[in-house]
């Protein structure tokens, strides 16, 4: 059993408004679910500055659907929907520790705790 397997299910706080949980991933990477009351568009636009961003404007197809963000940067990719209560992040390869630090700092700032 790897260290990552042993950590599966562990939860920790990112500031006071975001909770993270370590999940099982299908490859050699760290998978985290970040949960908050809502990841607003403003939050996503701030997080999008961390890397290369793709947006699927699903709300234009059906207003009941939410726009999807996927951000790729050195050592990580993260994705989620505007207004959803969770965001998935995957950390892998060189720079993954720094990437997690940057993302969590950006999350704290986005939730007004910078």
């Amino acid at each position: 059993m790897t260290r990552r397997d042993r950590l599966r299910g562990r939860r920790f706080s990112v500031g006071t408004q975001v909770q993270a949980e370590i999940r099982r991933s299908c490859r050699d990477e760290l998978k985290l679910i970040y949960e908050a009351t809502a990841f607003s568009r403003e939050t996503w636009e701030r997080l999008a500055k961390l890397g290369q961003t793709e947006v699927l404007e699903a709300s234009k197809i059906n207003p009941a659907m939410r726009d999807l963000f996927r951000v790729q940067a050195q050592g990580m990719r993260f994705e989620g929907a505007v207004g959803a209560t969770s965001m998935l992040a995957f950390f892998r390869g060189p720079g993954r520790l720094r990437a997690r630090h940057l993302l969590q700092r950006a999350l704290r700032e986005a939730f007004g705790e910078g």
Partner: protein
Amino acid sequence: MKGISVALPIKLDMSHGLAELGGEPHVFHCHHYNCFLQKVVEDQSNIVDSRALLTRPAVEVVMSELQRLGSDRAGVEEIFRTLGFGKLDLSGITAKGGTARLSSSHYAMGWLSKFGKSTSTVCHFAAGFAEAAARHLFRTPFAATETKCTARGDAHCEISIVPGGVELGASPGMGALATFGPRPAFATQTSIDEGAIIQACAGLPLSGDAEGLVHAFGVSLTRHYANYYNLLSFRFVRAMEKVGEVEAMAAQMQLVEAGRVCAFNTFGGIMESAEWEGLIKPQCKTREDWAFGMVAVVNALGWGRWSIAELKPGSRLELVVDGSYESNGYVSAFGHSKHPRCYLATGGAAGLMNLIYNADITQRPDLTPEFYEKTFQSAGVFVSREVECRAQGASACRFVAERL
């Protein structure tokens, strides 16, 4: 977001629920299904020629596609990468043979993730693909064998290509296509907008990254060859039938189990994904809407047209599948069958009900192997059967999932 259709001329044929490239139907499947299906066949290698069963269908279907597309070497490598099989370098192959090299491999990565280190090579599909590429590029028969594999601990995967090799069968191509009847009335009794979900899914970036891998829905996806699964599964059952009745039954049960594994991991991964959070969950008003939502996503995967004909909350699902890729392939390649042949969809129906009513996927559990065991060995587990199949002459395939 940019979709796969931009990179390859994949045509979506919604009237048959299929995606087509070079005359071959393509379907999305994840590493859980791909590797489990392979292991089912490999586990019987003492009584069947598992390596040939796993490799030859790849040669047949890929060869057929490449010939239709007229791809050059770079084009062949791009197809392999874009479909999510990994990164293949064919530069070491000439008319005299040579070595193909994989710097990343879907099957090796998937095997390591699912089963740990292997004692043998595992990239049988890739070997078949490389053999087909050599046959296509040099217009002469070759035979391929994987000699190095990262799943075994090697630094990279290598496939040896030598002149010679067996004569190939013909691919079933698009198969025996069905004419779809009207959908069951119950199929639309939901708040889920299936058309919008299919349209949105078509816009997702589901093509291979720089390593030739597609990471989406929490799994590693491939846009695989439907006829690879068909020829592999149906020939495996035939080979096991030659051994004995019990062996044939065991083979069919294992293929259905592969469908359950697929549903648990792929459907489960989808229902825990960012895409589900954005596209489907906001439309779900009831737990049953999760089933309708999943069926809408399935209808974007190239698996035919799935419809829920009846859903009794917590107790019974009746599913109708028009033009399942399994029945298309079976009827075309093998003709009429005395038995139902849609193993994947049978397992999928049970898997869907277990995810919703036993695993409570709405609470986003961690989809671990231990949780799979717990879910499928619990009291009241859902089991499914195919009660009508096109391979037996029915107009559509029908499945019932009920608690044991």
